[in-house]
């Protein structure tokens, strides 16, 4: 039963990792951009949430109403002002520019909020639990998982059922022809980044309610998201959710064997999958 519990808790943790990964997956799918600052943007969203709760007295979940639009606008501006200039055949500019961005965000947060770990106060929600099938489940982890499934279903629907999604897929397939068909790819990329950072905002708030955070943890969150994307297979959103779950389960089982093994177990499972299935479990975009 202990092991079943570890697997269930790991699955729920995987929901959070899928939220970390969804934005990364979306950006890569639309413009082949890998955003090194992604983890720091998650942490930035958590801090914005913290400010919203302390300054406006909002509940962390209500803070989503402020933080999600704020991050989305930031994403659009960031893409149009800086990142669009880096896109091209050479992979170096986007990589190094987002790397510089990561250092800037990290140190801005350090300057504004200090290096002390912070946490959002969600009141009773943090400790609320219910029992199901002999297991005791936290309301917050279950809620995070449900939100993750909802977000991925929403992204999937946007991609395949809306005009915006069609524009995303067209620019992803062939930028020049999409441009000839009257799509402004700079605008489309801006919208894609806005959507990705809106998802990132949700990820940051859920992270900030669940655990304490400080400005330096962005890199670790980027790596979890990245591992979920690669395990699931590039460009496959449902695969990303599965990847997040596999990572979460590996970590909780690792932690059960030895607390020092939690993160290591996750990384090792990732490396094993990379060795056995280099394109991930459910690849969609072939290289």
């Amino acid at each position, binding site marked *: 039963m202990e092991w079943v519990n570890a697997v269930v808790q790991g699955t729920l943790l995987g929901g959070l990792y899928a939220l970390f990964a969804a934005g990364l997956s979306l950006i890569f799918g639309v413009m082949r951009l*890998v955003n*090194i600052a992604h983890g720091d943007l998650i942490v930035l969203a958590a801090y914005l949430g913290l400010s919203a709760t302390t300054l406006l007295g909002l509940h962390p979940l209500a803070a989503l109403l402020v933080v999600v639009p704020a991050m989305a606008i930031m994403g659009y501006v960031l893409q149009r002002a800086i990142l669009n200039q880096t896109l091209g055949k050479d992979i170096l*500019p986007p990589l*190094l520019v987002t*790397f510089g961005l990561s250092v800037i965000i990290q140190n801005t947060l350090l300057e504004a909020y200090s290096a002390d770990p912070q946490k959002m106060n969600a009141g009773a929600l943090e400790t609320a639990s219910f029992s199901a099938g002999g297991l005791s489940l936290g309301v917050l982890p279950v809620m995070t998982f449900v939100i993750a499934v909802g977000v991925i279903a929403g992204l999937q629907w946007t991609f395949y059922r809306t005009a915006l999604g069609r524009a995303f897929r067209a620019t992803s397939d062939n930028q020049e022809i999409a441009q000839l068909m009257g799509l402004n790819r700079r605008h489309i990329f801006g919208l894609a980044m806005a959507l990705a950072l809106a998802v990132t905002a949700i990820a940051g708030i859920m992270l900030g309610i669940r655990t304490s955070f400080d400005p330096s943890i962005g890199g670790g969150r980027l790596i979890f998201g990245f591992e979920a994307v690669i395990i699931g297979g590039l460009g496959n959103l449902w695969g990303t959710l599965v990847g997040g779950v596999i990572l979460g389960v590996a970590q909780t089982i690792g932690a059960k064997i030895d607390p020092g093994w939690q993160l290591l177990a996750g*990384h090792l499972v*990732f490396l094993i999958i990379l060795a056995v299935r280099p394109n991930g479990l459910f690849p969609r975009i072939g290289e």
Partner: protein
Amino acid sequence: MTPSDFHVTRSSSVTKIAAVLGLLILIILIAAPYWAGRADMRLMGELFLYLALASLWNLMAGYAGLVSVGQQAYVGFGGYMLFALTMFGGVHPIGAIVIAGFFGALIAVPVALLIFRLRGAYFAIGTWVIAEVFRLSFAQVSVLGGGSGSSLPVGIVRSLSSSRAGREHLSYWLALASAVIVIAAVYFFLRSRNGLALTAIRDNELAAGSLGIDIWRTKFVVYIVTAALTSMIGALIFLQKLRISPDAAFSVNDWTAFVIFIVVIGGIGTIEGPIIGTLIFFALRETLADLGTIYLMVLGVVAIVIMLKAPKGIWGLIRTRFDVELFPLSYRVKHSQTAQKD
């Protein structure tokens, strides 16, 4: 004018002057213990180690297209090898540095086989995962102090030299030697057959492949050689620090972020770039370091602006403006009798 009046050469008067000046500067630097103060020597030693790291990262990213954000894996690995070999193997520290390089190359082989499956930017994050695995693994080794790390015993430090001045001079010379060896190694590698292949890959991977260059093998060799040398530099860095912990040894900021900024600001894909970048980085650091986090933000902004406005860095600007290079690497066509005008 017939074709025989022309010949192709790599050297020019600028490279010859640069070689003579470089040699003079090197002699002055070797003599530093006789003219520089203790603090200056310490700073210069650190500068040389960063120069070596930057030149190695530049060889990988600027020439082989292997953009790694995980070189701290080998810096930390080399550092831990130094501690393990001297403390438990009874090896002399300088011998341990060489063996650390060998082990670095050895462990880089399976790592390369694994992460070479990832392309472009995903390769970059893959290298970071490897560095994390190294950090978490060394944090599990309790004989090396686990998560809190350990210090180098006094006896081992004494074995370098019995006097404090002697140790300081030796560690300065080791740092200088590492920078000279790395730059010389990169230079001769680029002038070799492999280097020509590498330059071709840098300029156009598809065309290089169609001319029969084994791209995978060339990149693999570069990755292994870089890992070995980076491990040796790492061992040297922690021989100077005398203390190691997983967080310090595998710090992405210290061993990768700064190195990337140095190369980008100086000029990626040139030997001169890292040299200029290191000088600028240390000049900025010495003037702005009191500002703490603001200094790092400024560094990030400078790197982004350079990447967007002058992607070839400061040396790139100088080179396009004046058409010079200090290391004779590219070929030029020269007229044999420049005095004769017709």
